[in-house]
């Protein structure tokens, strides 16, 4: 009885703390009140619940879990940014691995489109992870806040194109044979595609990989615009190929985090399980909820999470 009362109090206290943090008070600067031994489970449980919600919202809004997870958890939970980034990469990796086999089987993801880009991005993601773990946490937090606010701007402004116009493919994409045909079941026809601007895209993937490793964000938020708007790949092919690309880029970065002891089971596992279960529910809700509104909610959520990360980094 006494235990259950104490557990109820812990939950109430956590709810109050979460509410306070959402309105901007830095209540987690002193989390000693929660370091009382018997309450250790409150934060992992809260992490599981938040990860579950991120999984649901992420699927509905068409963004990976990592980009929501890192700014939200690093801003509102007492865990060090190193462990949050490690968990963020694992979440993004698990989501991509779950989707990739099916996407490759249906030919919606294309190996020739993915492999050269992934090779470049996986090298830069290792450098991003190494540099991120060597930098002071508050500097990474400030950069994370700025990056998230830029992602919000990018998400708000970018207009995806179902079938971008590619007048002629460039010589590099011809040499790499990055072209093909896939069957689109929605319109029930085969779609022929090719790409252009391969060199600028390769340079952009150097930056994407670096940011993915540095912030543990995954890279879906940037992969799709570059594949679709810069290279000119059809949207469905871009979305599917992005998942496969993400699994390669995040694998290289996550190993750096694992090897440097920046992955804690108590943080990473509830997050991965929460996001995966949330994604399953999200897929079911996809048919009945207007994803347009969810995207707006995600943009607002990311804006506040980015702002919070920036202010936390600046110790305001």
């Amino acid at each position, binding site marked *: 009885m006494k235990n259950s009362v104490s557990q109820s109090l812990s939950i109430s206290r956590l709810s109050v703390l979460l509410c306070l943090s959402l309105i901007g008070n830095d209540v987690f600067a002193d989390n000693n009140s929660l370091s009382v031994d018997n309450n250790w489970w409150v934060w992992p449980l809260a992490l599981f619940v938040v990860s579950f919600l991120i999984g649901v919202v992420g699927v509905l809004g068409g963004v990976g879990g990592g980009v929501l997870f890192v700014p939200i958890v690093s801003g509102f939970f007492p865990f060090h940014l190193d462990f949050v980034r490690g968990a963020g990469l694992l979440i993004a*990796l698990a989501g991509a691995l779950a989707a990739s086999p099916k996407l490759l089987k249906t030919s919606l993801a294309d190996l020739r489109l993915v492999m050269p880009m992934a090779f470049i991005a996986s090298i830069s993601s290792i450098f991003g992870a190494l540099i991120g*773990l060597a930098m002071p946490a508050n500097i990474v937090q400030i950069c994370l806040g700025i990056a998230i606010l830029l992602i919000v701007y990018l998400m708000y402004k970018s207009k995806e194109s179902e079938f971008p116009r590619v007048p002629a493919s460039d010589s590099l994409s011809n040499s790499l044979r990055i072209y093909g045909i896939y069957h689109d079941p929605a319109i029930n026809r085969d779609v022929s595609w090719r790409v252009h601007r391969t060199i600028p895209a390769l340079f952009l993937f150097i930056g994407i990989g670096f940011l993915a490793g540095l912030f543990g964000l995954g890279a879906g938020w940037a992969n799709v615009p570059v594949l679709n708007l810069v290279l000119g790949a059809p949207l469905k092919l871009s979305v599917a190929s992005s998942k496969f690309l993400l699994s390669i880029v995040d*694998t290289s970065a996550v*190993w750096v985090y*694992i090897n440097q*002891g920046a992955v804690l*089971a108590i943080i990473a*596992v509830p997050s*991965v399980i929460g996001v995966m279960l949330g994604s399953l529910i999200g897929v079911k809700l996809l048919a009945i909820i207007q994803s347009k509104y969810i995207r707006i909610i995600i943009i607002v959520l990311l804006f506040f999470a980015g702002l919070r990360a920036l202010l936390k980094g600046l110790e305001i």
Partner: protein
Amino acid sequence: MRVGFVLLIFSFTNYIFGFTSEPHIQLEHFAKYWSLSAEEFNKVTGSPTGWDWLMHASKSDYMNFLGITTLSLITVLCYLRIIPILAKNSDYLYLGIAILEVVILVLAASGILNSGH
């Protein structure tokens, strides 16, 4: 993928409820450490880095790394699976890219690459 996910669920359940063995760090003490940087955390708690966790794999917290590393090795296994197919099709350009990618991923997984705060 499924194997990794199932391993994660079982090992984490075991970790939380302490069915088989004791963890390296008692769960009740974690709140004191999780706000430290990875480098400080490892120093203060004497936690292993790199593949040294294998020496502690019998402890319930490090059992979780069986699932975590399984998930993280899947991409390498996928590349190893397509390398013979690319070789059979004489697709030497992509065979080269695939081999180089495996080298990069193995290098990342090896723990040779290091940085410090």
